């Protein structure tokens, strides 16, 4: 993990410098400043999932208190290599504006609709708008192609919590972190060949492991890396506020 020390502030008086906190995962609940709200500030009620730093336990109240670990649990959907943004959200749906709550929901309903017919199981069942697969397991270079933020947004809006891929394309990874819509994790092994769509999996962030309950196997996940502090803070805006880069909101 890196970079707290490499953040510097320009001479511009708009930005105040502050001492940079040691980077370590924060386990407190941090209001996710990037969650989409309607114009009057009311959080869209249809959000099912809490923000990425809030532990997603299997207990009833997932908006839990301080817990030492984050977990994701649910069915997994498996895709291969080089799943590009056109497959994640075909371009014809990009007229939907993600910062508009109604259109945000509609975007979600089209998530992964661009996958070819070789994927016999749909990510979202016909006549549904949400997915039953909380976790996507992918091969290499997930999210390649366009810079469209609609891609991680569509996945998050559909109800996906995390992606575990062999590797990511840069802009998609960055957008996932910036929006906080899905947690982009990297596996050490090629999980897309180990898991099948419909397997029940649990991801334990602190232990950095994925457990496939259906096959009984466990796998190691890679550390979150440089963008850990940004993810922990809750996205780029929260991170910038926390480090004094921009003023806090009142």
């Amino acid at each position, binding site marked *: 993990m890196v970079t707290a020390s490499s*953040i*510097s502030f320009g001479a511009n008086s708009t930005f105040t410098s502050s001492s940079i906190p040691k980077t370590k995962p924060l386990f407190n609940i941090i209001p996710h400043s990037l969650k*989409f709200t309607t114009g009057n500030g009311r959080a869209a009620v249809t959000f099912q999932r809490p923000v990425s730093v809030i532990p997603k336990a299997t207990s009833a109240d997932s908006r839990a208190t301080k817990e030492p670990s984050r977990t994701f649990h649910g069915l997994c959907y498996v895709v291969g290599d080089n799943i*590009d943004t056109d497959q994640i959200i075909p371009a014809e749906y990009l007229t939907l504006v993600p910062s508009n709550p109604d259109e945000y929901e509609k975007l979600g309903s089209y998530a992964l609709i*661009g*996958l070819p017919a070789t994927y016999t199981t749909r990510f979202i069942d016909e006549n549904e708008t949400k997915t039953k697969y909380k976790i996507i397991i992918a091969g290499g270079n997930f999210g390649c192609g366009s810079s469209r933020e609609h891609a991680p947004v569509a996945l998050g809006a559909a109800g996906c919590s995390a992606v575990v891929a062999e590797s990511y*394309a*840069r802009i998609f990874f960055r957008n996932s972190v910036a929006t906080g819509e899905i947690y982009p994790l990297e596996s050490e092994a090629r999980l897309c060949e180990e898991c099948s769509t419909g397997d029940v999996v649990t991801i334990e962030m602190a232990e950095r492991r994925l457990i496939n309950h259906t096959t009984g196997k466990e796998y190691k996940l890679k550390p979150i890396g*440089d963008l850990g502090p940004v993810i922990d803070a809750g996205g780029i805006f929260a991170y910038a506020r926390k480090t004094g880069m921009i003023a806090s909101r009142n």
Partner: protein
Amino acid sequence: MASSVISPAPTSSFINNKKDLGSFCFSSTSQFSVNKCKKSAVSKKIVSVMAPQQSERRPATTGSVKNAMTLTEKIFSRASEKPQLSPGDNVWVNVDILMTHDVCGPGSFGIFKKEFGENAKVWDREKIVIIPDHYIFTSDERANRNVDILRDFCMEQNIKYFYDIKDLGNFKANPDYKGVCHIALAQEGHCRPGEVLLGTDSHTCTAGAFGQFATGIGNTDAGFVLGTGKVLLKVPPTLRFVLDGEMPDYLLAKDLILQIIGEISVAGATYKSMEFVGTTVERLSMEERMTLCNMVVEAGGKNGVVPADGTTFKYLEDKTSLPYEPVYSDEKASFLSEYRFDISKLEPLVAKPHSPDNRALARECKDVKIDRVYIGSCTGGKTEDFLAAAKVFLASGKKVKVPTFLVPATQKVWMDVYTLPVPGSGGKTCSQIFEEAGCDTPASPSCGACLGGPKDTYARMNEPMVCVSTTNRNFPGRMGHKEGQIYLASPYTAAASALTGYVTDPREFLE
């Protein structure tokens, strides 16, 4: 001072001994010397030409003592006001230009307002360029509404550069409208050496042709930049591509980049900068350099750069009066890897369905029957791309065998297509040659069907068919239909294919 021809110092680990076969292939049958660095694929001839550079832990330097830096590192250094940095560092960078368009603008503005307040003002009304270009000539209501959203924001914020369009029925009736954002940015003088240009579009990397750092970002990052003029970026290491040799007259920059992507794969440059140097590159025009840098993202690249030189300065002469300061890689800068290509040995290429790295020789695909040809987009819809296509049609003198769609990238390109004389034609314009060849009439300038778009988009692939296209991506469904098959190619190859109805090597007509 152009340092684009940097010979590796004798003490460098660049291997130039043919006998050192353990390091790379340089057989007479191969067209190029190559260095593959696929990390996971099992392959026999995959090693670095240059010993992998370990990132060293450099002690902090003081005063004006600097370590050697690459072009991209120098841009980061200046933009972040840090005299010293290394690949891997995360730094806050000052942005010179932020571009957005009709697809991502509304979302970016939404985030900007939510985070900075309904009455917030953008950080600099002159550094933001708003270019509607993606879904313009359509009856899709949301698409049309998105252009209105751009307009409302621009009026409210008094944005200086907004290339508006209101009359969708007649693009020429819109004096401000330009067309495809990346081409408009160049043509309007917003690309300058040494600067940082961000855009809410993956092909923003096109601007690297001007020796600047240019990359694509999402709505949230853009919303952040709108308010602050800064972005948090990780300094990328640089892959260097040395292209030498005289470019054969049947090759274009599109072939060069398809060659490179085919070599390093769609993830070969992830998080890395791609620097293009060498005698071939120096002789490329600005538009050809733009084509080269445009598809850097298809290799996963963070950005691409061509060092600025006389060609760059000449192009910029009548386009910008803002001062700029080009930077260049130091002689002793560290590159992650170096790849060398002898361009004189290259042949026209295509990228077969369904990946930009699915490289094949055009002549080896001559049995592939096609249904249509598409010439357009930021990759292959510039003036020179149309001149190139016209050259092939002129050489043939025959008519196309399949529907051939022409979508000039910008108004200016459209004008050029209708006014510029094609060399060797006795004064005919591209448009005349296209008409004689039976191509479709050049369409209104926009991104068009490159990415499919709303169902009524001109030239969209609404049924499964085979298309040779001068665009940049051919993943399933890219141009509309999931079962569509797209062969990415240069304008020469596209035009040649149109004439035969099969994927065709342009040498059939150019030699």
